[in-house]
């Protein structure tokens, strides 16, 4: 059996691989959405922080001999901590300004982080092995799926859904959502909003770092890995609309899959397909698939 000239096995295989990429998109766009929610800032440095996550993994292994699992735990803490410092040192001064300044500030930040990493690590990239426990592949009948890829999908789904639950279903989440709209008032009700803002930023950044660690074994760790992915993630965010957490997760996964299929049918266009979809979505639903008109 074939689907548009591609054997169904291959088709399913590609679908699954698309999901893996989608997991990265989902995790990054979720982090962006969380930060945007409370700080009203599009974090342009998100890609750079994702890259930092991958470097933490590399350095932990290289300098300290700490393996993948350690990194998975350490990177969000270290990079998230770095995020917290950034928030305290820089971000706080611009909350009252037009949101565009946030974009510009984080853009500058991304340049700096990337530049510093280039200086210290060069650009040719660093090796990182797949963790031993996840080596090898499972024969699914229609394809051989490397165990590590399966793990990536699972791990990111857990992280994403966990985040969704906290934000949409808990009291803490209600504070977050309310703080998103009117932080002053929420603070006047007795909630420590500045702390909440700082931690939220740290959390969003930590999501990026987890993404970076997960990516380390499958793609080259180099200072540019973040800027390559961030623009696509922006498009994902525009398509999904930043209105809903679940929206960013679903859009991320969905676009990963679509991009994966594009690689089979018309590989040349696989990097533009996301932008084309963005254009179409904008024409039909300007607010994005899950967005609300303001």
């Amino acid at each position, binding site marked *: 059996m074939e689907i548009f000239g591609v054997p169904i096995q291959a088709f399913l295989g590609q679908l699954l691989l698309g999901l893996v990429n989608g997991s990265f998109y989902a995790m990054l766009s979720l982090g962006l959405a969380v930060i945007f929610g409370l700080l009203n800032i599009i974090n342009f440095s998100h890609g750079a922080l994702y890259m930092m996550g991958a470097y933490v993994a590399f350095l932990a292994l290289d300098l300290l001999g700490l393996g993948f699992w350690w990194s998975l735990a350490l990177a969000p803490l270290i990079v998230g901590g770095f995020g917290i410092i950034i928030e305290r040192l820089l971000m706080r001064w611009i909350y009252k300004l037009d949101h565009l300044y946030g974009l510009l500030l984080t853009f500058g930040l991304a340049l700096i982080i990337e530049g510093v990493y280039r200086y210290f690590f060069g650009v040719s990239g660093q090796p990182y092995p797949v963790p031993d426990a996840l080596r090898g592949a499972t024969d699914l009948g229609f394809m051989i799926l490397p165990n590590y890829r399966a793990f990536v999908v699972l791990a990111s789904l857990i992280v994403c859904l966990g985040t969704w639950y906290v934000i949409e279903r808990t009291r803490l989440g209600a504070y977050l959502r309310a703080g998103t*709209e009117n932080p002053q*008032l929420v603070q006047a009700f*007795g909630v420590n909003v500045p702390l909440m803002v700082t931690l939220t930023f740290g959390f969003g950044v930590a999501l990026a770092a987890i993404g970076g660690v997960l990516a380390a074994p499958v793609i080259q760790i180099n200072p540019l890995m973040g800027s390559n992915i961030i623009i696509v993630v922006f498009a994902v965010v525009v398509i999904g609309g930043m209105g809903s957490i679940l929206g960013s997760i679903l859009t991320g996964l969905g676009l990963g899959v679509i991009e994966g299929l594009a690689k089979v049918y018309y590989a040349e266009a696989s990097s533009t397909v996301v932008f084309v979809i963005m254009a179409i979505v904008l024409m039909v639903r300007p607010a994005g698939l899950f967005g609300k008109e303001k």
Partner: protein
Amino acid sequence: MTTAVEFLRITDLHAFYGESHILHGVDLSVNRGEVVTLLGRNGAGRTTTLKSILGLVGHRSGSIMINGREAIGLPPHKIAHLGIGYCPEERGIFSSLSCEENLLLPPVVASTGLSVDEIYDMFPNLKERRMSQGTRLSGGEQQMLAVARILRTGAQLLLLDEISEGLAPVIVQALGRTIRMLREKGYTIVMVEQNFRFAAPLADRFYVMEHGRIVEAFSAGEMRSKMGMLHEFLGI
């Protein structure tokens, strides 16, 4: 008569938004269980006074004693925990929260608050629109929600900014009854009101503001003798 216990004392309060100096040395005090109304023209600085109490202005100086604690240096969330409930002028209903979530949002600061059922009895509209998105409520319904919301927290000092604005007479009357009831329960209330006819029968004392200063203070008993002055200041 029981001896008055001072609950809020403001001395020489100055407040700024950025570079503009709005309050120029406000002094006022409110006793426990009192209802006090701030009167004044648009832009006189009444809202700013309430916001200053909570630390929501750019910069402030002077002294604000709440229940014996100095609040001038505290961040807003700590001030709230001294037992203050705030109903802002622009209502501040959250659109990403449902009506009920809005109601349940403010953290409880003391155990003496009303229960959700009591609140719904007081405002049946809210019960009906309970699952509605916060800002989908009508203007008046939002106003009710904003007041209802802080009654749950057990805050003893309520700062109410223009709560009668945009409400149908029937609701304004209901609000009046609520305020009286709250006073009987021992709540302390500072109201900012444009609607003098609403405020007049409720308040124990009045302050009149003009250009960021208190220019007059009188009690309910003195009201008649002050009508001339009020007319001059407020066109009443």
